[in-house]
């Protein structure tokens, strides 16, 4: 079984090396592809020094476009399982086994690590963000028809079917919420597992207070319009 870790990174030369080492500590056989999303620092070089494959985007695409590049790589190189671990270090690779477990067991096509399944420990975020996360969780749960607690988590694992879907179609800008709805519309099975996430060790989050508002409006628009989109179920041949 070919397995790969997809690591999106934008100006993360401080963090990406450690993330790679931690992933390797978790599983030395996991291939690691770092997507350097148009960084101006040495992110790609650091990634290569640590023995990862580095894909360098010619300019910044944003997290959605970067992550999708990794899934395209995983799809084209026939990987059976992909995990996403963000290059800023907020996802703790030692918890990867929890995220991967449902995929290995064949219980789900996509598994998402949630901070809030069991009132996730040790994660603090701003108030506006917490309210936003709560509201999105409510809306998404309604649409998806099962309880989704953490719609903005990018700590996830996919099987071949999930990789094929995301390689072909993945939302831009702030992709996780839309992706959750998309996955359910494509009738892929998804589950949430409990994880804790870390504070960023250096650098700044890409989501500021003002952007949260834009984020909410944009994501809600995308979700509701997406509901009226013709439902495309992936063809058997591609999965």
């Amino acid at each position, binding site marked *: 079984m070919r397995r790969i870790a997809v690591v999106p990174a934008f100006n993360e030369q401080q963090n990406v090396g450690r993330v790679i080492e931690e992933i390797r500590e978790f599983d030395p056989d996991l291939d690691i592809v770092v997507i350097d999303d148009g960084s101006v620092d040495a992110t790609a070089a650091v990634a290569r020094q640590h023995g990862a*494959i580095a*894909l360098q*985007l010619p300019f910044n*695409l944003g997290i959605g476009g970067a992550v999708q590049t990794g899934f395209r790589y995983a799809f084209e190189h026939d990987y059976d399982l992909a995990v996403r671990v963000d290059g800023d270090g907020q996802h703790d690779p030692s918890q990867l086994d929890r995220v991967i477990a449902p995929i290995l067991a064949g219980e789900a096509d996509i598994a998402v690590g949630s901070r809030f399944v069991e009132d996730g420990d040790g994660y603090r975020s701003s108030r506006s963000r917490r309210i936003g996360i709560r509201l999105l969780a409510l809306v998404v749960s309604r649409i998806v028809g099962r309880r989704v607690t953490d719609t903005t988590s990018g700590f996830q694992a996919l099987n071949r079917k999930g990789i094929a879907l995301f390689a072909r179609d993945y939302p831009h800008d702030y992709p996780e919420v839309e992706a959750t709805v998309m996955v359910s519309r494509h009738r892929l099975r998804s589950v949430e597992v409990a994880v804790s996430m870390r504070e960023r060790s250096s650098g700044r989050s890409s989501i500021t207070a003002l952007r949260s508002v834009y984020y909410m409006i944009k994501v809600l628009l995308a979700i509701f319009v997406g509901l009226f989109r013709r439902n495309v179920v992936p063809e058997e041949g591609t999965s």
Partner: protein
Amino acid sequence: MTPIAVSVVGTIASLALVLIVLELIRTRRLRERYALLWLATGIVLAVLCAWRDGLNTIARWVGIRSYPPAVLFAVGILFILAVLLHYSTVISRLSDQNVLLAQKLALLQEQLEVDGVRQQ
């Protein structure tokens, strides 16, 4: 009634628009597919300006009694909105294609390096 000066100036301006668009197409500075809406704008406005009875009739249909040329503004604005909306869809498609190109480039570059190492 529509003042005669409005009809004359309006017709000339609309025909000028049509001519400019045609010239842009001729010199390949504007692709035909993006010119169609502009041509339609110019032609419709020119017809409405020149055909004075028609303008008055249409104005009456839509309930404009006092000043028929207001129809020209409405139609003009409508076409401008259509053109802008069309541009938004074009920009959206271009940015989608741009993302795809960037991703393919990154994948190809990596592939090239892998192949290069293998050959050495």
